[in-house]
């Protein structure tokens, strides 16, 4: 990631400019986990959303070595390219479950495999395995996740992110509403995926989890301070 | 014979300009089998809807050496056939006949003679409704587009609905046909029995609709196929076990008649000239 800037320009009642990120740069080697730390409101999620292109970066580059297109700048790639990358190699697990209503838990997870030419039957088998690993009670599999508790939804979300074995996985507080026992399972899964070569960028609110999974940590507080110093130096010279 | 001609009229009633118009449109119709060619339909001493289209074709086609036969639903003797024959006799003075084989031009309403027609014969149909799609689509603008695009799915659909509701296609006359693999046309209200006679015939078939101002044609040796689904082949009327009470034919299109004397249904050839011929042959 190279000096990424994200500004929101809102023109509703009056024009407002919100600068969420101002020149953030970092690198993650393949198969490594980069943790992003910092106080809330500092733009941690914004980074993930810029990589995933839910947010359109204002300037800067996100270089990603993709299997589909080779080296590609996610900040400037076409929407179609992003669509394909999302379907095939970039996963995103958010704090909140955002799924289509009236689809059962198992199909929410299994559906991710359909673009990979799985039949629904095969996909559901894979999904079952993962739901078992995440200890989602069997009687919930055929229920609608909208009615689930926070922790249950979170696990559906994780299963959805993990099932395709993405090359790059973005995790936005995936353990926020899980108890310690469940966190343990999730951490194990993450470590297993890392072993399999999945590159990950993640935000965890608790430092213990972060320490266990992250190979390196980007502290947003430091980034901002560094940028401020650089700017001041620029202004002075 | 010549003394019968009413000299106040042009030969064959129509003026030469009108005949030329009709002949030109007829040529165009022959060139595009099944395509309805609009023409300037003239006033005639019979009402529109009573065979004026066929009559205009006949009048513009006949020359002094032609022999005309006029039939109405197979019969030479019905009022309409007789009147039309008289009109032509009075204004053209040409020979008329009831013998199918002798005629060069036959004007007909709702039948094709049983005796196969030859290369030097023309059958002229009187057509009430030239547009086969009219029953489904009232707008001329749309039916023209459908013909242009060869979009006949609506007609197929009506046959399909027929089969779904009744198990068979219930169309008894004017069965829609495709000419030369291109235009859908109405064969005029002839029974299904006559449809196969349109395919690869030796004679020329001309269709005239006076009220609707359309001429169309099926030239000799043209493919004429009735619309039919693969699993519901086209079928003609069946007269199995029945025969004409007059000539004994069992291979002709029969009319059902109620015999008052016996109180029973009896059958009789629709083509009266053919029936008489069979009767004569039988006596000999």
């Amino acid at each position, binding site marked *: 990631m190279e000096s990424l800037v994200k500004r929101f320009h809102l023109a509703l009642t009056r024009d407002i400019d919100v600068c969420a990120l101002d020149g953030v740069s970092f690198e993650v080697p393949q198969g490594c986990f980069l943790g992003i730390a910092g106080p809330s409101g500092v733009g941690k999620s914004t980074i993930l959303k810029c990589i995933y292109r839910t947010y359109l970066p204002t300037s800067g580059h996100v270089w990603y070595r993709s299997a589909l297109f080779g080296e590609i700048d996610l900040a400037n790639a*076409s929407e179609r390219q992003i669509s394909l990358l999302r379907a095939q190699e970039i996963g995103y697990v958010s704090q909140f479950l955002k799924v289509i209503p009236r689809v059962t838990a198992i199909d929410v997870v299994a559906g991710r495999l359909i673009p990979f030419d799985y039949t629904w039957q095969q996909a559901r088998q894979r999904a079952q395995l993962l739901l078992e690993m995440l200890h989602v009670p069997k009687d919930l599999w055929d229920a609608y996740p909208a009615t689930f508790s926070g922790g249950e939804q979170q696990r559906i979300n994780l299963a959805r992110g993990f099932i395709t074995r993405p090359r790059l996985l973005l995790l936005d507080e995936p353990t926020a509403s899980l108890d310690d026992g469940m966190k343990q399972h999730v951490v194990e899964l993450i470590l297993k995926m890392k072993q399999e070569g999945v590159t990950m960028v993640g935000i965890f609110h608790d430092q213990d989890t972060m320490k266990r999974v992250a190979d390196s940590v980007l502290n947003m507080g430091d980034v901002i301070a560094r940028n401020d110093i650089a700017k001041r130096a620029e202004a002075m010279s | 014979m010549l003394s019968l001609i009413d000299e106040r009229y042009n030969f064959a009633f129509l003026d030469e300009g009108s005949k030329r118009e009709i002949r030109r449109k007829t040529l165009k119709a022959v060139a595009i089998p099944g395509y309805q060619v609009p023409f300037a339909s003239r006033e005639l001493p019979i009402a529109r809807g009573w065979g004026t289209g066929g009559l205009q074709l006949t009048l513009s086609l006949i020359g002094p050496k032609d022999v005309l036969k006029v039939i109405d639903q197979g019969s030479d003797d019905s009022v309409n056939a007789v009147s039309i024959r008289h009109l032509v006799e009075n204004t053209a003075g040409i020979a008329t006949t009831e013998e199918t084989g002798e005629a060069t031009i036959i004007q007909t309403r709702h039948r094709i003679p049983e005796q196969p027609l030859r290369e030097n014969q023309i059958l002229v149909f009187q057509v009430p409704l030239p547009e086969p799609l009219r029953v489904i689509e009232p707008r001329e603008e749309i039916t023209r587009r459908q013909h242009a695009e060869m979009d006949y799915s609506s007609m197929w659909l009506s046959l399909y609905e027929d089969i779904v509701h009744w198990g068979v296609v219930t169309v008894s006359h004017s069965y829609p046909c495709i000419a030369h693999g291109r235009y859908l046309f109405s064969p005029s209200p002839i029974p299904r029995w006559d449809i196969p006679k349109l395919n690869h015939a030796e004679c020329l078939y001309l269709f005239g609709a006076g009220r609707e101002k359309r001429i169309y044609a099926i030239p000799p040796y043209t493919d004429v196929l009735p619309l039919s689904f693969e699993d519901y082949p086209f079928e003609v009327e069946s007269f199995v076990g029945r025969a004409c009470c007059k000539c004994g034919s069992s291979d002709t299109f029969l009319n059902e008649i109620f015999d008052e004397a016996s109180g029973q249904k009896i059958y009789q050839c629709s083509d009266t000239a053919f029936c008489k011929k069979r009767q004569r042959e039988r006596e000999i």
Partner: protein
Amino acid sequence: MMETKILSQQETDDAFDEHDIPLMKVKGLSKRYGEGCEKCTMDDSISRCPECGALWACRDISIELYPKEILGIVGESGSGKSTLMRCLYFEEQVTHGAMYLSIFRSGKADLFKESSQIQRYIRNHMMGMVFQNPWMGLRMHISGGGNIAEKLIAADMYHVGSIRCRAAELWRRVEMPLERMDESPRNFSGGMQQRVQIAKALANHPPLLFLDEVTTGLDLSVQAKVLDLVRQLQQELGVAMLIVSHDLAVIRMLADRTVVMKHGRIIEEGLTDQILEDPQHPYTQLLVRSLL
């Protein structure tokens, strides 16, 4: 993730084109009602020319639709989205522009320049359409099954048994009671009529489906069921879909990518989640905020 060797944008585009060809390409489509004049296209903010009074329902629309993809077109009524769809279905003649389908003459022929006979062929064999108003898409004097049959006949199926069989299969697939297949759609509820339309549109396995405000005017619970059906069918059959709606909730549920139209122009396009979470154009921002 930094790497030494970096492909230029152009090179990645090429690599990408090899594998992934749009099913449908529309270039510079404009539709004008009225004579038009030289000053016609000057002002972006209005669709009616103040000089000559011509109405520009669509102006310079370019879109691409990939196989199996759902593209949403959102905008208020009068933004030109339905006109655009009617143009693509050859129901309206375009003023300018071109349209290509990868499956027709290798994507080299501009379909707007083809004869109406060819356009009919393309519509019957490669496209399906579901109209907002079922009276536009269905023949009400013909049975529901007959309506499906019409599309099959149009695509050259002339075997009553096979037609019946396929119609019944579709009928069941859209969850309609089989015993009502020979009934006129006039007797059906709005939601059922939309189901019949969907069955008809899908009858001949088109790779491309147009949906114009399919749920507008339906009860909320019925809307949900129709949308579920559309989504399931899309996953099952892999049909590419163009979905026109004024309702962002519909777009959010179905579309991969979204195009926002106003005054006949595309003012913004992007991934649907990006349009919803990071809208760029003030109008889109207003639209999204109205949703929440």
